């Protein structure tokens, strides 16, 4: 059940890649317990690799960031903070989402996340709708997302559904990349 948007703290949403502060993004990934890897790997619960995160964000077709006005309890700073307009560099990164694409036919949505304390306020939905809006504005309508059981409810509520063509989702699950390739492949 969604609390009304009126009770949400002030937010701004941005699709500008230069607004993505990789340091804070890494913290957000950690706060949401997301490592970037879809399947559980050995040595699970690993934090997201910052170098790979940088590459992934750089090569994502769309990135969406949501910033929130930080709540500063000390009264001296609070007044000034409320006066300043909320921007990407003085706000706190509380939500994120990205999509990779071939820029014309298909897109895949990854890593949609909101910090735990601000969930169920419609922020995730906002992120997803913005991702879709940018993609459809570029004429990309084949938008896919890999969802586990919990995410399915979220994506389902945002207009996603099972494949109309009844395709089966499959993922490669053989030896992880850490293992040396023992010549198991032909050629």
């Amino acid at each position, binding site marked *: 059940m969604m609390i009304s948007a009126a009770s949400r703290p002030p937010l701004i949403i941005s699709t500008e890649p230069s607004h993505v502060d990789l340091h804070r993004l890494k913290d957000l990934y950690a706060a949401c317990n997301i490592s970037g890897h879809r399947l559980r790997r050995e040595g699970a619960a690993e934090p997201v690799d910052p170098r790979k995160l940088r590459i992934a964000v750089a090569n994502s077709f769309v990135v969406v960031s949501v910033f929130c006005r930080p709540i500063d309890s000390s009264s001296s700073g609070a007044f000034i903070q409320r006066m300043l307009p909320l921007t990407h560099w003085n706000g706190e990164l509380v939500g994120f989402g990205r999509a990779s694409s071939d820029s014309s036919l298909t897109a895949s949505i990854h890593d949609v996340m909101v910090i735990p304390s601000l969930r169920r306020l419609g922020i995730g939905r906002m992120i997803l709708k913005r991702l879709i809006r940018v993609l459809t504005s570029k004429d990309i309508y084949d938008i896919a997302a890999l969802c586990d059981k919990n995410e399915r409810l979220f994506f389902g509520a945002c207009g*996603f559904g099972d494949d109309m063509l009844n*395709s089966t989702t499959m993922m*490669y699950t053989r030896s992880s990349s850490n293992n040396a390739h023992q010549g198991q492949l032909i050629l």
Partner: protein
Amino acid sequence: MIFGLYGSLIIRSQQRQVNSSSQIFLPENMKTLACSQPVSTFDSRRQVPDQLLFPRNFNCGLPSGVSRRFKIYHQPKSSFWESIRSGFEKNSTIQVIEPASEDGLEEESLLDEFVLSERTLPDGSVEKIIFSSGGEVNVYDVQELCDKVGWPRRPLSKLAAAIKNSYMVATLHSMNHVPGSDENGKRKLIGMARATSDHAFNATIWDVLVDPSYQGQGLGKALVEKIIRALLQRDIGSISLFADSQVVDFYQNLGFQADPEGIKGMFWYPSY
């Protein structure tokens, strides 16, 4: 309604100069080609049995940097305050990243081409199957191949852009050579596969197809395995695809698992 949208796209693209790198060949008049066929929006992902997979061009090494064009990432303009703040913070990882050096990590030469197999035909000519990646892709040939395997038509310009901006595109060509003559025959596209990726964590394989007359030779299997190996070499761990029911077994034999850990793919459906 979707068809109308594509129709208007084609008209628009006629007016603007479509960026034709030497690698993608586009027709003069795309309108007649595209609008005469019904268009489906959901066919990119179909991995149907008639289409085996052949990675053709591993595109991430495009020397001209054209594929970078569609990447929205700009050089982060480190604002004045950010640069001061980063100077003060101790373990700050904020840094001004030059796109060039960043791409330099990936700009390995990925043009790869070799002969996969050779066989002698009854008429004495030698037919080579050539695997290639990162090389030229003729979008007309791809469209023709899609017709052969029975896929609905997609707008040519979109297909060309998709191929150009895929992380990996691998192809198979057949080339006939008559022994005794100096020249090689024409290359014919007989298989293709492409994969999109964020270059770090996830990749999805789309559009895997092989000419029906060349199927059943293990070519498709080799293609998929090549793509997988190349992706794993780059430590891209999540490789996914959406398979039609008839090809689920084919992919299972290659190491794919259906709905692993309960993860399913969902697709966006606009509600009008």
